[in-house]
């Protein structure tokens, strides 16, 4: 099995939840921000020494939930701090961005890192569409068209133009091109059957996060496999990535206690302001084309928030416990979902950075040797 260390780069110092979205930025302290970036990037670079296959980052806007408005900047820093670990950008919010710029920045990262980029393309969570003033109704159409432009930008041997529904370019010829051929490995996320079908249309891995129920997650993976098969591909377990909020400590009790405290801040403070914005987008747009998908999206977060740590472990939503316990939980995920890649988000809310580092090293010393060969 393969493993990623993922960092959300949360702001840890809010005394109480913002009441509105977007969260006002008056409490942001730039000096503290500099400290956090330094700590977070050192932690991410340490993932290489801890045996992780990928180190991952993503993109969010207008929220203390994540200080990563552009994960490619973090990726660029990682090209200089690491030697061999894959750099997983998970990913750029494609419908909100200029696809040529995304193709260029990803190609730069791939060349700068010596061919270590994993190129994530995500549609994003609903409220990001308010931040960048793009119609949520257009999200799927923009995503499909932009992805086709990027694949061409990476692979066409001659300059080309593009006349599309959302994008028009009269001449594209990016410098540099990616180092990996024909192009870097692609990953797209799927949180419902519709998006799983969409991902299966492309030569892409699928990524699931915030698993609320193993059976639902399994149905999403099955839908991805079915779509990929219909498009002439047969995904391997390594093509299925499952994201898990993770806390590994010396004992189960310590891990559960740390996780409970960190998730209380994560759900109660960091996630709070965007819930209203997400509700508005879901209710007032066709962001989710499939009936019930919007309700499922909103309920999933509420469900996770309302569950105890033990209930979340049982549901397959988180990895939490001593190394021996986490090994069992990983085996269970492998068995139920057929996944060959787990993406671990270990810096949850106010989780102390020293505890994150310790968990990473427990993973290296006591978990990885037991699960690598799965």
């Amino acid at each position, binding site marked *: 099995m393969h493993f990623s260390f993922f960092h959300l780069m949360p702001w840890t110092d809010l005394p109480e939840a913002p009441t509105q979205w977007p969260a006002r930025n008056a409490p942001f302290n730039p000096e503290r921000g500099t400290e956090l970036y330094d700590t977070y990037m050192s932690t991410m670079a340490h993932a290489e020494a801890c045996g992780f296959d990928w180190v991952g980052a993503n993109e969010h806007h207008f929220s203390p939930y994540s200080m990563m408005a552009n994960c490619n900047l973090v990726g660029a820093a990682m090209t200089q701090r690491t030697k061999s670990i894959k750099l997983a950008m998970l990913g750029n919010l494609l419908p909100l961005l200029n696809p040529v710029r995304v193709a260029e920045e990803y190609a730069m990262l791939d060349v700068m890192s010596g061919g270590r980029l994993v190129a994530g393309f995500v549609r994003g969570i609903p409220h990001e569409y308010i931040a960048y003033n793009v119609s949520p109704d257009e999200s799927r159409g923009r995503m499909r*068209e932009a992805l086709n432009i990027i694949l061409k930008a990476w692979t066409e*041997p001659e300059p*080309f133009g*593009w006349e599309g*529904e959302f994008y028009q370019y009269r*001449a594209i010829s990016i410098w540099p091109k990616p180092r990996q051929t024909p192009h870097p490995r692609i990953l797209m996320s799927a949180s419902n059957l519709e998006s799983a079908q969409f991902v299966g249309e492309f030569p892409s891995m699928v990524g699931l996060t915030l698993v609320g129920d193993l059976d639902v997650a399994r149905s999403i993976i099955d839908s991805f496999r079915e779509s990929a098969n219909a498009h002439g591909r047969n995904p391997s377990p390594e093509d299925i990535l499952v994201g898990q909020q993770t806390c590994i400590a010396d004992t189960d009790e310590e891990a559960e206690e740390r996780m409970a405290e960190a998730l209380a801040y994560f759900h109660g403070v960091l996630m709070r302001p965007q819930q209203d914005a997400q509700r508005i987008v879901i209710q007032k747009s066709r962001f989710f084309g499939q009936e019930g998908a919007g309700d499922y999206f909103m309920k999933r977060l509420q469900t996770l928030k309302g569950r105890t740590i033990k209930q979340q472990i049982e549901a397959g939503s988180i990895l939490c416990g001593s190394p021996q316990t986490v090994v069992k939980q990983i085996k269970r995920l492998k068995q139920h979902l057929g996944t060959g890649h787990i993406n671990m988000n270990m810096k949850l809310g106010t989780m102390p950075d020293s505890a994150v580092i310790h968990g990473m090293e427990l993973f290296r010393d006591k978990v990885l040797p037991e699960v690598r060969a799965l």
Partner: protein
Amino acid sequence: MTEISFSTRDVALSSGPLRVRSGGKGRPLVHLHSTAGPRETKVLEAMADHHLVHAPVMPGFDGTAKHASVTTIIGLADLVAGYISQECGGEADVMGESFGGWIGLWLAARHPALIGQLVLEAPAGLRRKELIAVPKDDAHLFSMRHAVPENAPKEANPETRKANRQAMQDYAQGVEFDEPLAGKLGDIKARTLVLMGSQDGIIPRDSGHILKAGIPQSHLTYIWGAAHAIEFDQPARASALILDFLDRGESFLVRQAAGAA
């Protein structure tokens, strides 16, 4: 778009009569049809809003008589050159669809002084054998041609379709990759716009790359949401782009502000 009426007439050329449908006003634009034969399209109508469109029917298509002395693609190119000299004041812009694009390429290579600008829509003639897709069945063949099924034209009657296909095969003489033409691309002086459908199943992307690399002043553009039949799949996208290219030449690379003339 204004209502344009097209009229059809037979023009006497040295090799024989040529049936031509024409309409619109402005700078002459010669439209060369595909293997399917001459068809009415929204793109043609849009062109006639700004150009005097000449749409000749290649001899042998749609029940017209062949010319005894015209037996090859090059022969057709020379025939169109004769038509431009005689009927278009000695110079015209040219656009060609698929088979018509092949003719347009030879026309531009052999008669550069007659051609203003050249537009090629998924042109045939440069398909490497190993890249030609073989359809599994009729439905697959249809999807290789049409990405927007509801826009597909009503098929001509089976006899006409068969005769048109036979006429194309007679001129093409079994050639899929025209080596002599590939060697002449550098001779093309006309600024050229090559359009390829992003989902074209008939003409491989490689053909577009060969043209872009070989024609000195050329532009390759993919039309999103189009298969082989670009004029039917995406008439608005194709028309806007072609008209801008014909109107502004190389300046079409520069985006104009909304409302700019």
